[in-house]
């Protein structure tokens, strides 16, 4: 690859503080034209803040940035766009009721709009980069991967010199990830620079020309030959040895090949009674769309069944129906001999069903309340006398639980919102796993947004629960996670079970195909 000596974007000692937190500290970084530059780091390492500094969302407290040799001091995203820097955020900003082409035009033109001309440009661009996109499709009808392409094309149509993507692969299918990395390569080959933020090493191996590793807001390592130096980069990222990592956590991260870590006990001769029996569970949303279609599954005691699938294929509805948050249209659920189909969340909790919801903030906790209140939110009445809360006991018990589950917080009384994402997740898990007589644990995306240490801890607790005889339903969009943790996997596609297979790395491709809707 041809490389000029002049960097396209140079950061010199850039620092950004939020209150007492130093999000980015003295970061220096050169981005060359024509390269794919990966920024690697765990959650909270400052990757997103760095991107937002480049894109003008935040203004640095210290340090300077030079873009094409000139001082670059953006005060907002519009400055960045004018300079030729475009960014795809983690969360899409699309108008769902509008078509692809309308979304692309938005913010790009004033006055009269010649939609046809835009459609021609759009099609030419899609052609150049080798992907298909119907300009007249409504965003609502597109898959997550396609929506991301709309975001990307919104950027590319501006012909940016620097293209920033913040964690773009989190929501994509394996095939879509490959296609995205291919697009990045094509953009770089066209002479622009691509900054790709990720915490997945597999992507770095495939796509990166150079890598910068962040930890705690600082640049802790750089590499010009990332594929060869991957182990050193991981060490720098997690400040530890790859070999010391929990094996499942390591394979989820993409260090080494996905590996099946769990060894199932040999199937016993006498069939054990099923702990959980789900029979034809169907969920229809209030628009009349069938979100979950005759989901049938039996889980034995101590078994972990993984549910794979791209997000939005019925997993949320499955978890919601099982946890009593949504009334199923038909079907039945049994826990042992007890039917739990139409029970309220309170009764479901009492029956021994623990739920780690996928959306921690919306469903799992009340961030404005204290850690102690949250960690016992579903059984606060155990700490009352005559209706009054025995706060001292509550706080002591919460302290014990926090110690057991390694929830790091200054004190049980502080607000839940003050905890990091990983600690919040551990607290929710602590609450659900320590349910009296836990018989069934539903864990939806339990490691989303967690760093490696926290991921390993979460897996440990899930395994411990299943060793105590609980049935576990693990819903995840991370295939590697399912292969590493589950005993077997069912694949959901558009609300239906596409197939059922062992959680084995050799099944990876066929699972990927089922996730994309091909029956086995």
């Amino acid at each position: 690859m041809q490389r000029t000596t002049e960097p396209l974007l140079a950061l010199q000692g850039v620092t950004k503080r939020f209150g007492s937190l130093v999000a980015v500290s003295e970061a220096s970084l050169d981005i060359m034209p024509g390269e794919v530059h990966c920024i690697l780091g765990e959650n909270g390492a400052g990757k997103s803040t760095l991107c937002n500094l480049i894109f003008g969302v935040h203004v640095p407290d210290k340090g300077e940035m030079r873009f094409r040799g000139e001082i670059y001091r953006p005060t907002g995203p519009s400055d960045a766009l004018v300079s030729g820097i475009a960014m795809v955020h983690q969360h899409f900003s699309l108008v769902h009721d509008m078509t692809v082409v309308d979304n692309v035009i938005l913010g790009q033109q004033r006055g009269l709009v010649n939609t046809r001309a835009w459609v021609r440009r759009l099609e030419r661009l899609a052609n150049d980069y080798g992907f298909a996109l119907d300009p007249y499709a409504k965003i609502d009808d597109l898959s997550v991967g396609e929506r991301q392409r709309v975001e990307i094309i919104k950027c590319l149509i501006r012909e940016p010199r620097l293209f920033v993507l913040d964690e773009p692969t989190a929501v994509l299918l394996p095939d879509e990830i490959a296609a995205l990395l291919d697009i990045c390569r094509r953009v770089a080959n066209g002479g622009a620079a691509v900054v790709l933020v990720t915490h997945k090493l597999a992507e770095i191996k495939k796509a990166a020309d150079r890598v910068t590793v962040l930890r705690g807001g600082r640049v802790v390592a750089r590499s010009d030959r990332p594929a060869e130096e991957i182990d050193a980069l991981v060490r720098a990222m997690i400040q530890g040895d790859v070999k010391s990592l929990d094996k499942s956590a390591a394979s989820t991260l993409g260090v080494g090949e996905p590996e099946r870590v769990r060894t199932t006990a040999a199937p016993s001769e006498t069939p054990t009674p099923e702990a959980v029996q789900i029979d034809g569970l169907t969920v229809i949303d209030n628009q009349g769309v069938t979100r979950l279609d005759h989901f049938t599954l039996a889980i034995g005691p101590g078994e972990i069944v993984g549910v794979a699938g791209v997000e939005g294929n019925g997993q949320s509805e499955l978890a919601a129906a099982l946890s009593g948050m949504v009334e199923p249209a038909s079907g039945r659920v049994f826990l042992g001999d007890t039917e739990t189909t139409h029970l309220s969340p309170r009764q479901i909790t009492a029956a021994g069903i623990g739920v780690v919801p996928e959306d921690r903030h919306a469903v799992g906790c009340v961030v404005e309340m204290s850690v102690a209140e949250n960690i016992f939110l579903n059984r606060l009445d155990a700490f009352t006398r005559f209706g009054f809360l025995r706060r001292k006991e509550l706080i002591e018990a919460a302290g014990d639980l926090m110690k057991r589950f390694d929830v790091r917080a200054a004190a049980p009384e502080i607000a839940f919102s003050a905890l990091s994402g990983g600690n919040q997740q551990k607290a929710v898990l602590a609450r659900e796993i320590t349910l009296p007589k836990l018989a069934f644990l539903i864990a939806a995306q339990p490691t989303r947004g967690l760093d490696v240490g926290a991921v390993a801890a979460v897996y440990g607790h899930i395994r411990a629960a299943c060793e105590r005889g609980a049935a576990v339903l693990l819903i995840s969009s991370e295939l590697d996670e399912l292969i590493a943790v589950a005993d077997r996997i069912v694949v959901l596609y558009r609300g239906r079970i596409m197939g059922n297979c062992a959680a084995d790395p050799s099944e990876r491709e066929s699972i990927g195909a089922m996730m994309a809707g091909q029956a086995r």
Partner: protein
Amino acid sequence: MTDVALSGYRRIREWVRPSVVISISAVVVAGLLGLVLIFAINVSVPDALSAFIDGTVGSPYAIAASINRSIAFALVGIGFVIANRANLINVGGEGQIAVGGIAATAVALYGGVAGLPAGLPFIIPLVAAMVAGVIWGSIAGVLKIKVGTNEVISTLLLSFIAVWLVYWCVQSPALLRKPMTSSATLPESLEIPDPTKLPLLTGDYSFPLNTGLPVTVVIAIVAGLLLARSLFGVQLRAVGFNPIAASRAGISYQRMVMFALAIAGALGGLAGGIMLLGDQYVLKDGFSSGYGFDGLVAGLLARGSVVGVIAAALLFGFLRSGGINMEMVAGVPTALVMVIQGLIVVTLAGAAYFIRQRQ
């Protein structure tokens, strides 16, 4: 400065919280602005001031009357704060006062309670007032949980209905209007029998604090404990902050909404009953005269604190008494008194902004 003096200064600083200082300054600033307005309409400022002082703290009678006025503000304000913990905004205090007043009058006049022993003649009408308030608050609750009607709209509209209900009751001889002996008979109810009137605390008509005061104090303490210490308080907060997470944790959103609005209604109804039995004795059109809305403002200004409600209620009680006296003695128009009250609310709300910035 010596160490001792410094620590003493610090102790004072800690005691005089900036929020208190800012709030008091806001009231003073608004009061001064009010004086400027009084000056501008050519009323003698010293006359107005002395009328205001006479009407508020000039005599034991004035003090007691002001405190009695504060009771209704405090009860409605406490109800507002409780409902607000569940993130509900009850603007229906006026209507809840109105139905409480109707129920108390009806039971006191025609419930046959006057002959009962030991306080029952006024306790039963007060309970009836609370029940009426509960019903009025619960209507909004049912509308909210069944069809999702915003409680701001439903409680407000229910207030209009209740206020006109009072009008109907006192206009119709079939309801509560006193028997028409001549065409000059006023559209109001009969005076309630003496045993049903709230007894005075001191028995002394020159310092007429009524029994509503200890009732209100007890309710304030219970409400404070409920919000700060009880499971119910925690559940209200959980539902207020995050109804989905709360319901996943087994705390029923519907139940909490019903409880919160019913309690707010009960306190509004009680306020109406106390106004009627403790002070007015006769049900008249418009007897609630904005107490519910001022109580709502007291609740808003208190920003979640029961102590704050009491402070705001007292402020409003004294302001109203002073305002009435300014109008009667110094000839300051009612409208201007209302303007001054409004100014105080606006400056206090503005002060809240500065307090938040300091925190």
